[in-house]
């Protein structure tokens, strides 16, 4: 974890209200694991006061990339930043995805992405294809409409199979990415289970958690939460998790990636 002033290399629109930013951050890129995030101070003035968290989307050489959607004042300011400006960022933060080991008995990998949730899953797909090239990766991407679908080609270039779902049916399956997952199931009992990784809106993750319980496959979900400190100090971002009765876990430090089974939705 480091705090640096990172130079903006790219900040461009890639869809309606969707942007991609590349930052020169070799110290963070070297340490970063899929599922981890950076905590960005979008302005030296306030409001907005608090930093904004963004999943690391890709690491390429000395630069890191994030994907973001403009949802409020913080991301609006971010979208107006120019190439060459500097951003105060903290990272890499949090606990990322646990990669399947080479010996684990899984048939293949399914990634389920909703909206900008694709961001961390592309980084994960890259890491898996490097670490374990034999595993086949199926990517299920969901969005409201075809304009909001992101990263389809990036996954294909990695050799992943990609299926898409749009809520209005303007592209691919009409419905949700979690429906695509359900269509893919049930699996025959004698086959090894797939390992599922999901990132997207909490309603989607909740549904996928339920499906994973029903069909008993391992499932990791990456939660989105509003954060204050981002380093585990303020205890503002907790989620309810299983304990002797229950306990609270910090999204920023114990997550953002959790086993779906350990959460109490």
């Amino acid at each position, binding site marked *: 974890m480091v705090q640096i002033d990172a130079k903006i290399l790219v900040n461009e629109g890639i869809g309606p209200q969707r942007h991609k930013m590349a930052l020169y951050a070799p110290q963070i890129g070297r340490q970063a694991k899929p599922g981890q995030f950076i905590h960005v101070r979008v302005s030296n003035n306030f*409001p907005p006061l*608090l930093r904004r968290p963004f999943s690391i989307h890709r690491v390429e050489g000395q630069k890191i990339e994030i994907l973001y959607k403009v949802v409020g004042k913080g991301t609006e300011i971010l979208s107006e930043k120019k190439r060459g400006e500097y951003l105060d960022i903290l990272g890499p933060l949090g606990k990322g995805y646990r990669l399947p080991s080479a010996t684990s008995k899984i048939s293949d990998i399914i990634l389920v992405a909703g909206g900008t949730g694709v961001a961390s899953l592309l980084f994960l797909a890259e890491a898996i294809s490097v670490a374990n090239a034999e595993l086949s990766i199926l990517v299920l991407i969901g969005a409201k409409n075809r304009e909001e679908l992101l990263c389809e080609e990036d996954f294909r270039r990695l050799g992943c199979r990609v299926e898409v779902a749009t809520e209005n049916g303007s592209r691919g399956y009409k419905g949700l990415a979690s429906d695509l997952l359900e269509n893919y199931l049930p699996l025959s009992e004698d086959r090894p289970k797939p390992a599922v990784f999901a990132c997207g809106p909490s309603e989607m993750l909740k549904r996928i958690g339920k499906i994973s319980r029903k069909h008993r496959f391992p499932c990791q979900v990456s939660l989105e939460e509003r954060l*204050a400190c981002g380093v585990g100090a*303020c205890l503002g971002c907790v989620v309810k998790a299983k304990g002797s009765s229950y306990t609270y876990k910090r999204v920023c430090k114990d997550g953002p990636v959790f086993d779906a089974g350990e959460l109490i939705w």
Partner: protein
Amino acid sequence: MMQKAKDKPPNLGIELAGISLKNPVMVASGTFGYGEEYAELVDLNRLGAIVAKTITLKPRLGNEPPRIVETASGVLNSIGLQNVGIDAFINEKLPFFREYDVPLIVSIAGDTIDEYVQLAKTLKGEEISGLELNLSCPNIKYGRKFMFAQDPKTTHQVVSRVRKATSLPLMVKLSPNVTDISSIARVCEEAGADGVSLINTFTGMAIDIESRKPILRQITGGLSGPAIKPIALRMVYEVHRAVKIPIIGIGGIMTAGDALEFIIAGAEAVAIGTGNFVDPLTPIKVIDGIREYMIRNKIKDIKSMVGSLQCRKS
């Protein structure tokens, strides 16, 4: 050749209620965890002191989320004193501080006066520099209508009982949710407190207009950050005129200028709270900025700044 007096570096060190501080800039309870969360980013040895997250007798799970929401230049929180409890604090968190040369002040809170006394007794003999009584958390139910710091009588009882139970320097964290904070500060002084920390957060709320639900699960929370700074400053100014014991000024400090305002208003030391979330280096930047200010204005000793407000003659 003898060094000229004016070339000497300014003295930022202070004695606060018997604790030696390298500089008057501390980090406030609840915003810096148990120190370890920030150790990778901040040189803890440079801090004036660390006030640890409030500890209770038994571990507390804290409140249901959502616990936090940003408001205009502020943050509302309703954490509910989630903490590991005094035993785990002593066994698991305290050893970390032995590696550092920085005073540790332990913040404690109880549901009853007896619990405050018991906490103070349990901490006897531990390597800590002082205690801060948190009488002012707005986010927990005390089994009574008011928080301790809203009632002069119970404030007096808890401070004097803890005073008898410990020889450690004793600070009291005051609530701004009162009519007259000076009278509560005076009660603390009379009951034997060595200092007062002010202020804790203001009770506030925020509403989601689409769902018409309060954003925080507990409906209300404590407001902190730059939004409350002018009120905190006014309260430090008032309390400074009412008591002789030192004041730790807290409330929305983001810059050295903010910290100096509190010192000029009468605070012997300051603590950074929400500023740590915005920039973990806030305390370090504040220390450096105070030093630069002192050099620029040829001030040799920070103590000469305390309460140096120049009011206009009427």
